[in-house]
């Protein structure tokens, strides 16, 4: 299979997955898109192995490795910092008034304001999206560094 045929097929698979995503939203069935997503990527990996043209070599593998490593180094710090804060909020237990705090009547006691777990989940999802942008950014940076857009005089 030629390289361009592979890219076309990968694009078609992406379109099918997008359609299935909205269809699963329509019928309220997350299992459908979850299974389709896994199957879609297995299919992409199989198609990739059938490509006879050269897609990657040691330079492109190095670019991928470096971009992935830098993304991981930045992402895990941001993700863990937020997650630690979120866990701290979940573990917070209302305590009795301490000695230096004046006793308040029961009507003035409010429950502690914590971030709802649903919002925590959404923020973690946004952080995952950020990881994709980080990876793309680092990939561009290292591709440029290792001569991807060098001008050829030939």
């Amino acid at each position, binding site marked *: 299979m030629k390289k361009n045929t592979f890219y076309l097929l990968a694009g078609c698979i992406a379109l099918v997955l997008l359609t299935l995503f909205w269809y699963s939203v329509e019928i309220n069935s997350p299992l459908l898109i979850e299974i389709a997503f896994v199957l879609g990527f297995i299919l992409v990996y199989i198609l990739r192995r059938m490509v006879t043209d050269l897609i990657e070599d040691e*330079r492109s593998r190095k670019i991928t490795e470096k971009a992935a490593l830098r993304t991981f180094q930045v992402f895990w710090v941001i993700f863990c910092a937020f997650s630690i804060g979120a866990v701290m909020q979940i573990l917070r237990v209302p305590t009795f008034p301490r000695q230096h705090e004046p006793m308040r009547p029961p009507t003035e006691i409010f429950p502690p304001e914590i971030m709802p777990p649903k919002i925590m989940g959404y923020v973690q999802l946004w952080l995952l999206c950020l990881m994709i942008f980080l990876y793309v950014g680092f990939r561009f940076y290292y591709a440029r560094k290792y*001569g991807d857009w060098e001008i*050829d005089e*030939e």
Partner: protein
Amino acid sequence: MKNKIKVFRAMHDMTQEDLAQAIGVTRQTILAIEKGKYVPSLDLAFKIARHFNVNIEEVFTYEPEVQAVNMD
């Protein structure tokens, strides 16, 4: 790391695409090596040298990075 790939290509009348196909890399990799943007692995360096039937030292020359040295 300096190299004379361009010179050897010219001597063998090869394009970057020809050399890339012969040693199993992309043309962009050959271009990046020639421009000094990418230092090839030892394996790839040997492949390039063997393709031109020369020793690796004839194609690649090691030049350590110049560091600031205190002359005092």
